[in-house]
């Protein structure tokens, strides 16, 4: 059994520790849990060592009523790379969580949820068709809800509300993906072959592309569906690092990279997606600047970076998007976890104006944060972020829509500004009220981040100069120009713009509130972007809790569905009426019918008996004849009527 076959079943790896955690074992919560993501990581490395092969398994007719209802699992280089990312980041986060959740009341529950998340994420990655992907897709959404709402009683139920927001946004994406599952014709079951839909079923290609983009937007908090991610920061910080920075929110990008062929073949969809990405990258960058809560500031940074990746996929550079996904996973998880160290050190202080000057008390966290910031603004050569970011910029500038590239270049200033504001506001400058009581939370907080820091530096060289990543992926993903180690003029320019941004952020961090004041038209902004609750509250208003209302909506839905199914499809002839053989309806009393049958049967039997008797009589007569005048031995039982002898 090769490692690729093993990776097919990687979504089962976390089950043993999940069961153990659910049973409340071991006594020190999470002492064993990190083994399951480590196993995934080890299997992934073994798969690399064996030459990164592919493997497939399919159970046909798993769900019969779907066009492609087979249960397909596939491991190919793209899935393998994603599994490596998931295993790598999860292992660090699991180890870190042992420290972070040490004083929690229900740590076992936390680790069980985390295991559940990893299992669903792996299923999502190894899914061979959209239906299996949907199972993992929904599963990570549920895991996300459970973990966001983990401290549901805190702050008057705010985490629970945040969980509902995430669930609502995810439900929109799930619905879109469900429609996509139904749209895929049965011949194109496999996810890697989905790009052929433009030739096989062109009438469905655009609709499918829209569905995939909507699903990805919901999962990755892009465009109009961004609103759930910042409030998702109500969850524990390791969750924010793993789910809402590195892996789950990247699933939308992963889906788009997987199905890049479908998106690129629908130019309108691609163009819209590119604009959504750029728009989200810029506005989230601005929104990050006025967050008084530094963890939420980081969340907006994630939204912004995901916008970069969306743009890259949409302009036809899925490899650049995936590359940025890999490097971003490492350095953003590191940024979040060092923010978590600050939160743990200051007894859950998340307001940026309450902290400051923490660099001396938390030197490791400071170091990690500096490295993360450097990666975020794309410091050439020493950080991985520079290579992937430049790849996106170059691809966008070379695309048919170079104006998007120039907008992204302007976005580099915002990236620097929000990263610089957080760095200078939290770790440097004058100490805040919470700084005095801050204490170092423990060694595990420093050590768990070491692999991530190594990754934030080294992951770039997976591709830059060596071309290893593109060599691995060139069968699955369209790879572009090779990435060089020497910084290009464009890269240096972006870095310089980022440095200006950091300076601006540092200036902002010296003000008393340490955040940008809300603009004069704040209410409009909030309705559009800030803390918009309008969409979720509008949806919530539909829920009256009255059963009859729900029943009425179900009825309307059924009526519409029947209407759509019955109405002849435009431009197509109605199918010929189905010919059914009709049997004329002859009313018969079942009892009478039976009597008749019985009578007929009796008659037949009678006839057979009589024939038999006649034969016997004839034989006997013949015997009589041969024996002379002897009388028949046996008289016939009854004198037969008619032709009696």
């Amino acid at each position, binding site marked *: 059994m090769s490692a690729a076959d093993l990776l097919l079943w990687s979504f089962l790896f976390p089950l043993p520790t999940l069961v153990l955690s659910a049973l409340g074992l071991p006594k020190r919560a999470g002492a064993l849990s990190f083994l399951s993501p480590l196993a995934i990581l080890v299997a992934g490395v073994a798969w690399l060592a064996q030459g990164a092969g592919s493997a497939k398994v399919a159970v046909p007719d798993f769900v019969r009523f779907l066009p492609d209802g087979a249960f397909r699992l596939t491991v190919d280089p793209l899935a393998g790379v994603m599994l490596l990312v998931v295993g790598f980041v999860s292992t660090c986060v699991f180890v870190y969580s042992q420290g972070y959740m040490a004083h929690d009341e229900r740590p076992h529950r936390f680790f069980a949820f985390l295991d559940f998340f990893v299992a669903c994420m792996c299923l999502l990655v190894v899914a061979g068709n959209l239906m299996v992907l949907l199972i993992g897709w929904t599963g990570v959404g549920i895991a996300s809800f459970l973990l966001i709402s983990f401290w549901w009683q805190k702050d008057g139920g705010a985490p629970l509300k945040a969980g509902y927001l995430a669930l609502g946004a995810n439900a929109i994406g799930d619905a879109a993906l469900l429609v996509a599952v139904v749209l895929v014709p049965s011949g194109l079951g496999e996810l890697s072959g989905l790009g052929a839909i433009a030739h096989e079923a062109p009438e469905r290609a655009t609709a499918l592309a829209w569905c995939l983009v909507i699903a990805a937007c919901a999962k990755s908090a892009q465009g109009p569906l961004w609103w759930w991610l910042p409030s998702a920061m109500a969850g524990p910080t390791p969750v924010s690092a793993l789910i809402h920075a590195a892996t789950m929110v990247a699933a939308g990008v992963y889906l788009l990279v997987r199905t890049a062929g479908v998106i690129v073949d629908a130019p309108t969809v691609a163009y819209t997606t590119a604009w959504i990405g750029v728009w989200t990258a810029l506005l989230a960058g601005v929104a990050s600047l006025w967050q008084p809560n530094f963890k939420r500031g980081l969340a907006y940074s994630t939204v912004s970076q995901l916008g970069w990746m969306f743009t890259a996929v949409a302009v036809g550079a899925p490899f650049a998007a995936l590359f940025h996904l890999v490097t971003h996973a490492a350095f953003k998880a590191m940024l979040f976890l060092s923010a978590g160290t600050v939160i743990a050190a200051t007894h859950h202080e998340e307001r940026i104006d309450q902290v400051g000057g923490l660099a001396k008390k938390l030197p490791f966290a400071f170091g990690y944060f500096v490295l993360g910031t450097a990666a975020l603004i794309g410091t050439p050569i020493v950080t991985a972020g520079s290579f992937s970011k430049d790849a996106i910029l170059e691809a966008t500038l070379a695309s048919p829509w170079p104006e998007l590239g120039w907008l992204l270049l302007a976005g580099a200033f915002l990236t620097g500004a929000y990263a610089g504001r957080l760095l200078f506001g939290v770790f440097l400058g004058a100490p805040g009220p919470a700084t005095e009581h801050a204490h170092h939370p423990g060694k595990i907080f420093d050590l768990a981040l070491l692999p991530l820091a190594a990754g934030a530096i080294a992951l770039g060289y997976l591709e830059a100069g060596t071309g290893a990543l593109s060599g691995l992926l060139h069968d699955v993903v369209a790879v572009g120009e090779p990435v060089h180690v020497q910084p290009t003029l464009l890269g240096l320019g972006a870095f310089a713009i980022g440095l200006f941004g950091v300076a601006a952020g540092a200036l902002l961090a010296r003000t008393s509130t340490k955040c940008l004041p809300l603009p004069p038209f704040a209410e409009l902004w909030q309705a559009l972007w800030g803390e918009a609750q309008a969409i979720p509250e509008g*949806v*919530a*208003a*539909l*829920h*009256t*809790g*009255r*059963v*009859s209302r729900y*029943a*009425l909506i179900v*009825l309307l839905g059924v009526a519409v569905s029947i209407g759509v199914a019955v109405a002849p499809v435009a431009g197509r002839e109605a199918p010929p009426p189905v010919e059914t053989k*009709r*049997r004329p*309806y002859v*009313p018969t009393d079942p009892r009478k019918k039976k009597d008749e049958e019985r009578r007929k049967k009796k008659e037949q039997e009678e006839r057979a008996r009589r024939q038999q008797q006649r034969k016997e009589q004839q034989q006997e007569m013949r015997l009589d004849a041969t024996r002379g005048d002897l009388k028949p031995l046996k008289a016939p039982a009854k004198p037969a009527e008619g032709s009696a002898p």
Partner: protein
Amino acid sequence: MISLNALLVLSAILFAVGLAGALTRKNAILVLVSIEIMMNAANLNFIAFWRAGMVELTGPLFALFTLVIAGAESAVGLALVIAIYRHLKSVDVGNIQSLSG
């Protein structure tokens, strides 16, 4: 002999009556009764189509199954109504809206 059409019309009327009741009645028990009426309309359809030409016993079999399951369902429903009555001292479905958003 009653024609198939007449039976179908009767079934449709029964269904509409049940639906209207389920959607408009405030009393939870009457809602349950209305649901039963709708289910019997479906049963009537099964039997009517069977009479109109099927030789196999599919129609009556389905109807029998439905009857049994409907019995179980109304038992559960009534138990729920009783439990709700113990909590809220009312069986008015308008009062049961703790799921509202």
